[in-house]
């Protein structure tokens, strides 16, 4: 039995559908991320699960119980907001205790559970502080403790780290994921940051304009996007219009806007045309023409290079072909002369060529 199940859920504002015929299930202990551009309906979906937004159609189940139409306070969900939403007139302790009080838990049990929850987020020593006396990261940890202490069926987080700086955000990701695994709590996480989604999730739900585009593990979403939109949204990619010009026993030869590529034949090609994706970090840059098995090598010219610290990003114009984005790890310390205008060779492995199903 799924912890959360949405069936054909629909939410319209006026004539616009914020969420359209959405099906989604979260399994026990699973970490599911809703990912998509601004306005695609992530928050609306989350708020329907929490009970603050009523769907126009469809049903929502939590813990096997139909909760459509049941108010938020009887849904057993833990909610964490981007702006923390700590009660400013209550100490950290009182904030965390609030949910237990509302549930009529007796005082001695309250104390032990609050202390346990604050211990989980490593804020045991801060219980008498007021929220205004905490840093952003600490406030968000209190919010997490407050949501977890009631032992909800599902933890809902709407861009919880949006207000934190990058370093703290990276740190909180790890902390949240560890905590989630330890407690084995089903979690629905909303973000528009693909790195966040890739690094934390068991499954990612990519949304666009109120509908689900693709559901899958981080690996599947990144390596095998089912549409141009997902490929484009999930990190950098080279996308080419391609048509088949030759085929052998195990490979297809594709003409990608003038660049000849070999793709594994296991990939279906509907009709003669397709969009192919090559991730820029899978392309190798060579100084001289070297032919390798299972790769195609083509010559080109460096148009630009951008130094990004751990990686360097190049734009390479292929002779009589497209401009290709290449990202290399910054390990060689300048063995490729990065001057715009220098001639280079690109080595593209067959298995890096992915045909987007249409």
């Amino acid at each position, binding site marked *: 039995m799924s912890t959360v199940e949405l069936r054909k859920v629909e939410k319209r504002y006026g004539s616009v559908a914020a969420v359209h015929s959405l099906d989604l299930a979260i399994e026990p202990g699973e970490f599911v991320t809703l990912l998509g551009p601004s306005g695609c309906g992530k928050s609306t979906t989350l708020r329907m699960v929490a009970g603050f937004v009523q769907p126009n159609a469809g049903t929502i189940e939590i813990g096997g119980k139909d909760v459509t139409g049941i108010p938020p*306070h009887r*849904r057993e969900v833990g909610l964490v907001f981007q*702006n923390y939403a700590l009660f400013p007139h209550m100490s950290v302790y009182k904030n965390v205790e609030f949910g237990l009080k509302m549930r009529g838990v007796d005082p001695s049990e309250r104390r032990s559970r609050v202390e346990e929850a604050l211990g989980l987020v490593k804020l045991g020593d801060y219980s008498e502080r007021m929220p205004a006396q905490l840093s952003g990261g600490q406030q968000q940890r209190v919010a997490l403790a407050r949501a977890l202490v009631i032992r909800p069926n599902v933890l809902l987080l709407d861009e919880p780290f949006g207000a934190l700086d990058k370093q703290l955000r990276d740190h909180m990701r790890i902390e949240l994921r560890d905590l989630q695994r330890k407690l084995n709590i089903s979690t629905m996480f909303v973000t528009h940051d693909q790195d966040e989604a890739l690094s934390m999730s068991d499954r990612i739900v990519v949304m666009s304009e109120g509908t689900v585009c693709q559901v899958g593990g981080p690996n599947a979403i990144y390596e095998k996007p089912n549409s141009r939109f997902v490929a484009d949204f999930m990190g950098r990619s080279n996308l080419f219009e391609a048509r088949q010009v030759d085929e052998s026993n195990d490979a297809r030869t594709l003409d990608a806007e003038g660049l000849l590529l070999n793709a594994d034949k296991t990939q279906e090609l509907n009709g003669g045309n397709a969009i192919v994706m090559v991730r820029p970090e899978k392309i190798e840059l060579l100084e001289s023409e070297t032919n390798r098995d299972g790769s195609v090598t083509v010559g080109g010219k460096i148009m630009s290079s951008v130094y990004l610290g751990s990686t360097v990003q190049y734009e390479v114009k292929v002779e009589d072909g497209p401009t290709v984005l290449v990202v290399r790890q910054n390990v060689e310390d300048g063995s490729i002369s990065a001057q715009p205008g220098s001639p280079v060779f690109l080595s593209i492995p067959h298995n890096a060529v992915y045909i987007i199903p249409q």
Partner: protein
Amino acid sequence: MREGYGSPWPHRALVVFSLLVIFFLVAPLAILVIQSFTNESYLSFPPPSFGFRWYREVFTSSDWRDAVGLSVLIAILVTPLSLILGTLAAFGLDRGPMRGRQSLYAVMISPMVLPHIVLGLGIFRIALQLNIEDTLLAFVPAHLTITVPFVVISVGASLQTFNVTLEEAAMSLGASRWRAVWHITLPVIRPGLIAGAIFSFIISFDEFIITFFLATYEQTLPLEMFSTLMFQVKPSIAAISTLTLAVTAALTAMLMFRGQILGGGRIVK
């Protein structure tokens, strides 16, 4: 002395001007307070002798005691009612549908700008019709018409800065809507509630024009002062004025320092 900022004269002129304004505002009150401690049977400045004669007179006279009692009674009844009505109205305006919100707000606070003499006349007509003139049933609602707008404004301002996700957080933690408002919203907007309550009390305690229409035998403090003045100018007027001034000043000070005295420190965002 400030140096290097050009001529000090504009600065000095400003100081002198401010002192003059303060003098003209405070001097009449100061003279009144000093005169109230005279031992003579007439008002003069400076008084030839000092004592508490007129304070004793005020505290022992049943007319004054009854007037103060009635004014306090009305203000004590008006304040909580005003707070409840004004707060409900402010919530309605804040949370209700957008359409018509502005005009509804304008209607609700209009008693603040309407001439009180017109309001008084209107309320007097209704009171006559209902046969409740000269009773609390008329005084309290009449005062409410002019105190409620102050609560609507002060609570409304607090609600505008209130972060509604706090209520949602409370509801997700198991609080019904009512409990969320009671445990979270009301405590957070408390400074606005306190301001509204103090305004209501002071305004009701001070009210003259509308009460004047409604009262015949019953006398509130402002009415009693007025009718005393009509017959004779005795130092007891100065004494009662000084007492009123003291109460009003204390409440206003509470209003100004409510953050420190009643709010337990400002809430920092």
